[in-house]
């Protein structure tokens, strides 16, 4: 089901025109009301009227998380505080938290995009939605809650945690859709199995999973354990919260609610806008929000955009599952490398979750990339040539993906250091050399 076909199925040219029109108003709004943005325009000797369409956005500045911190708590708000009806905030584990605000209109808009998100998972007003994201300053719980109510579904605001109660409600209230993080869904599955819950007999049929990165493999595992279909969703509080983008039945990329949030992909070093299909940093410009309309906000998430029409009928641009963060990015011989790209290559060769380590060091003036990965029984052969062939295959695949030659080395099991069950993936020795 498509919640709002009028906007979600707009022809591309009409979408672009709509975005241009909304962008113009938005830029005037921030220029008039946010001193931070007025200064940014002045620094470039530009006026909002100089930006005639979304294509001109590339000549503007960016907004970063640091800008939000420096303007803590409310200095980026574009409306007087009496118009703000809600705030949310990040946890602030690294320094000051980031604070986001919403007007009544913004809350309504958020409910709309969250309802579209649930519709992507087939939700209608006859569904029972169990919202197991945390309620509170975190946007997850309340965001999905308002979306589910807007949809007209019966909404269970159970919030996160208390797994046994979650399982009880799932069985007694006959919830059909669960909204939570993928790792929590996995935990529910495990504990449910221990308690003897037979998920296959429940009306429970879909999960709306977001708020943390996850792999395709993890999704399949959750689907198999809980006997449901899992839908990835994406959102961040700076943009609005859950409801920025979502998967439909095709599970082929996440539809961005681009009539409200205009996406760009940039090269994280140069800031240059990249063409369709190329991986880079995702950047959003809010087109309709009132209280905190960020312009070209850098998400630090790595993905690519695809504009082709989806089989579901929506015409909105789709983003790939987020594959990494710009914080994890390495620059090796001038090439941007994400650990997740290497992991994908290893996953295609090994059946199991690979244990690997990326070591970068200087050999003379040249950066050398070495990938060590642990031998396991699936790939072990007692013939040297077969093991060498695996190393060569990995090296070849890496070269075709990254365009970089890598030294690939098989190491003994459990020799790659693990802290708290997770391996440290990257060792960059160049800073010390």
């Amino acid at each position: 089901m498509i919640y709002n076909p009028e906007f979600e199925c707009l022809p591309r040219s009409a979408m672009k025109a709509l975005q241009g029109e909304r962008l113009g108003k938005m830029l005037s709004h921030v220029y008039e009301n946010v001193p931070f943005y007025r200064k940014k325009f002045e620094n470039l000797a530009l006026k909002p009227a100089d930006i005639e369409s979304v294509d001109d956005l590339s000549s503007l500045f960016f907004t970063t998380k640091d800008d939000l911190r420096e303007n803590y708590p409310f200095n980026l708000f574009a409306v007087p505080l009496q118009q703000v009806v809600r705030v949310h905030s990040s946890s602030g584990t690294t320094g000051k938290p980031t604070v986001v605000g919403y007007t009544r209109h913004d809350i309504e808009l958020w409910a709309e995009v969250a309802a579209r998100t649930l519709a992507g998972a087939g939700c209608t007003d006859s569904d029972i939605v169990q919202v197991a994201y945390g309620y509170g300053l975190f946007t997850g719980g309340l965001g999905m809650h308002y979306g589910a109510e807007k949809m007209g579904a019966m909404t269970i605001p159970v919030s996160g945690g208390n797994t046994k109660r979650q399982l009880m409600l799932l069985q007694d209230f006959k919830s059909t859709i669960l909204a939570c993080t993928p790792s929590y869904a996995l935990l529910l599955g495990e504990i449910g199995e221990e308690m003897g819950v037979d998920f296959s007999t429940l009306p429970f049929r879909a999960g709306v999973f977001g708020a943390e990165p996850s792999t395709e493999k993890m999704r399949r595992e959750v689907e198999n354990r809980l006997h449901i279909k899992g839908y990835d969703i994406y959102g961040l509080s700076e943009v609005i919260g859950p409801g920025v983008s979502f998967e439909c039945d095709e599970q082929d990329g996440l539809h961005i609610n681009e009539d409200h949030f205009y996406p760009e992909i940039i090269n994280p070093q140069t800031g240059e806008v990249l063409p369709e299909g190329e991986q880079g940093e995702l950047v959003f410009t809010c087109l309709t929000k009132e209280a905190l309309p960020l312009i070209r906000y850098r998400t630090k998430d790595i993905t690519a955009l695809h504009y082709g029409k989806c089989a579901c009928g929506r015409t909105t641009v789709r983003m790939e599952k987020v594959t990494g963060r710009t914080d994890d990015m390495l620059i090796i011989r001038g090439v941007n490398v994400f650990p997740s790209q290497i992991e994908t290559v290893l996953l295609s060769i090994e059946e199991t979750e690979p244990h690997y380590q990326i070591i970068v060091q200087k050999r003379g003036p040249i950066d050398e990339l070495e990938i060590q990965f642990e031998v396991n029984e699936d790939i072990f052969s007692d013939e040297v040539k077969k093991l060498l062939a695996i190393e060569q295959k990995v090296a070849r695949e890496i070269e075709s993906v990254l365009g970089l030659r890598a030294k690939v080395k098989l190491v003994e099991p459990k020799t790659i250091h693990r802290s708290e069950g997770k391996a440290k993936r990257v060792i960059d020795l160049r800073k010390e050399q």
Partner: protein
Amino acid sequence: MKIQQLSIFLENTAGRLYDIVSVLGKAGINIRALSLADTAEFGILRLIVDKVDKAYEELKKSQHTVSITEVIAVEVEDRPGGLAEVLEKFADNDINVEYMYAFVEKKYDNAVLIFRIEDIEAAVDVLKKAGVKMIDHQRLLEL
């Protein structure tokens, strides 16, 4: 006529080989024959031991990558041309030897050749037809 051989992955760093043989030594497992293939970065240790299953369990427990592979053991007289005669049979029948190693048993004045062959059934047939003496695990331990 097939013999079970243990193959273990090891990195080319100090102490790795010691680590493996000490695990086996402590578990009371005797090594009958041994060969080590090495590259610049890693090696593969191949062992024929008295208690294969126990050795396998012990090595798994100590978190080594280990597999059991099937090999053929052939007993030949310890004299010039002994090995050549066996290899000739393989060559004539297009049988490719992945690797081999050998040791000499003075008690019987014989040499024992261990072969790893991809098409092990074909190799067994060829050797049987040629009247070459293959030995089983029991005999190998008694030598």
